[in-house]
């Protein structure tokens, strides 16, 4: 698409320049070393949690689907740190990282994955369907695209009640082609709803690459017609994600309406545990892991800034591993759901 054509989009002021800048790796963004260390720890927690979930799945302790977030950690961590208490989050079935980033207890998440009564949904939800009202995390949805109108409603309610909360709505590159995404964007723009739409572009929807699924590769422009501004950000760079998130959140909280962030990211594992991912080359995956890993990147920044030592990073890894081990142990030692739960929570008791 020629540059002049691009210029016509309402998303233009924020699009290519910033995308280019952030792809160069947070050039110009200063980040507080303490905050960067938090990013590092949060991302590592998700990584280690997901690795453990993968193992438990292999051991038959987790059944059904299990969609790992490995590789995409910078997206949710960078954005979560741009939010404040009370902001609402909704996402897809690839939800473990989002829950941990929202401050939900790894124990309760792991227990739900393993179908135990101590899980966030008492074993009724499973890996794709967990919620925490307390942490303002609204799921965990298995229907591709469904998070988008739901997040729009979270934003609507915030505005209606006069709260200054915003709603962050995550969905994938594949979900962009669902009709309900377009319906939602228009409604949010029409009503100036405080919604941040986050497209996690990990390059694939199951076995189909973005190239084979989307006529336009500029997913951030999905709200063009409705006038929802969008931009592309390097989702493997947690500092860039945080910076883009902060700006978008300020804009939305100031009452100017919704925005879109397209996060360029990558999932290292298959779509779910049962996917051998034959639709892409090993090389491609190896290249992303070795050259673009978001956690390595944050570690390098920390070391370069001289604020932490290798030893400190190793210590964080030990702490995180311990927390994950504790979660796994808790889950495995928890009893299975009470059979009577089968019939509860279908409707509000009379």
């Amino acid at each position, binding site marked *: 698409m020629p540059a002049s054509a691009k210029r016509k989009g309402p998303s233009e002021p924020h699009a290519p320049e910033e995308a280019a800048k952030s792809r160069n790796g947070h050039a110009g963004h200063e980040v507080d070393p303490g905050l960067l260390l938090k990013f590092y720890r949060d991302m590592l927690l998700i990584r280690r949690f997901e690795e453990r979930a993968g193992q438990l799945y292999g051991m038959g302790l987790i059944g059904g689907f299990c969609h790992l977030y490995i590789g995409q950690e910078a997206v949710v961590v960078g954005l979560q740190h741009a939010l404040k208490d009370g902001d609402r989050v909704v996402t897809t079935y690839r939800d473990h990282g989002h829950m941990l980033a929202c401050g939900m207890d790894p124990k309760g998440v792991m227990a739900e994955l393993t*179908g135990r009564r101590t899980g966030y949904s008492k074993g*009724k939800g*499973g890996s794709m369907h967990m919620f925490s009202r307390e942490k303002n995390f609204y799921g965990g949805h298995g*229907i591709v695209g469904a998070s988008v109108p739901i997040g729009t409603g979270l934003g609507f309610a915030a505005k209606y009640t006069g709260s200054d909360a915003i709603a962050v709505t995550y969905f994938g590159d594949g979900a962009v*082609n*669902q009709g309900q995404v377009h319906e939602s964007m228009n409604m949010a723009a029409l009503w100036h709803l405080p919604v941040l739409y986050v497209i996690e572009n990990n390059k694939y929807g199951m*076995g*189909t690459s973005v190239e*084979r699924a989307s006529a336009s590769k500029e997913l951030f422009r999905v709200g063009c017609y409705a006038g929802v501004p969008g931009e592309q950000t390097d989702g493997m760079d947690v500092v860039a994600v945080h910076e883009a998130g902060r700006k978008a959140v300020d804009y939305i909280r100031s009452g100017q309406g919704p925005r879109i962030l397209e996060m360029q990211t990558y999932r290292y594992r298959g779509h779910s545990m049962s996917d051998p991912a034959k639709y892409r080359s090993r090389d491609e995956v190896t290249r992303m892991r070795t050259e673009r890993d978001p956690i390595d990147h944050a570690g390098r920044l920390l070391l370069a800034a001289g604020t932490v030592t290798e030893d400190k990073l190793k210590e964080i890894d030990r702490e995180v591993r311990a927390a994950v081990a504790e979660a796994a142990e808790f889950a495995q030692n928890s009893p299975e759901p009470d059979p009577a*739960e089968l019939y509860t929570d279908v409707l509000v008791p009379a």
Partner: protein
Amino acid sequence: MAELTYREAVAAGIAQEMARDPNVVFLGEDVAAAGGVFKATVGLLEQFGPRRVRDTPISEQAILGAAMGAAMTGLRPIAEIMFSDFLAVCWDIVANEIAKTRYMTAGQVTLPLVIRTANGGGSRFGAQHSQSVENWAMAVPGLKVVAPSNPADVKGLLAAAIRDDDPVVFFEHKSLYAVKGEVPDGEHIERLGTAKVLRDGRDVTVLALAAMVPKALAAAERLAAEHRIEATVIDVRSLVPLDTETILREVVKTGRVATVEENPRLCGWGAEIASIVAEECFWDLDAPIVRITTPHVPLPSADNLEDATVPTVERIVATLRQAID
């Protein structure tokens, strides 16, 4: 006879019809290059090429809407909706458009299309990927509804659905994809709208569908071996049209009827059959009609909870024993 899995029989049925009719096209999410998420359509892209076997974006409304438009002008599309739960995303096209077209056009436009979809539970996939929604489709006038229980029927009924001039919703059961069975060699086609008597017994007539069929058969064997109860087992196969002739004939013979249904209880397909039986042969019944169903709850994910929802062989045996003793 060749032994095929249920999933191989899907591909075989589609291939048989695509080879015979160039108007048959096949579209869906990850159906071509990946061969389907359940690997039920492996080899079709290689055999028939990307013009006829097409991967789509994740856009169910566009998939079914496009299938309908293509069918209006004479193509015979087969559209896959990956999980039957996702029919809800495009139900408008199914219920308001596809089902009503022939009627609203006074027969000018028929829609020779097939919607294939993976239905049912037992895989720990949770509330949005495990439902048995055959009763949704059954509730809409203008659709044919088929749900095979074995590889031979998959191939034969799928072929029949593709050749049929009406829209057919074809429910494959995800827990049956790995099941093997004999499939006749050469062209194989079954008749839509026919139930099949799989086992003869004098005490009770058991009606089952899809994944409940092997369970009903296993339960019948146990009832015979352990309790001297002899059950007739019927594979209903087609909900619309419903083979009431076979069903009523077999019910009258035993004087007792039980349904084994995976759909949730309220308005499950067995409720309709129970009502027909009550109307048509009430005086031939020796006992109240029994329905064995999934309870009226969303499907939970945890092992023990899910195992307590979908009817099991044990539950069928216990319920029938109690009803007959």
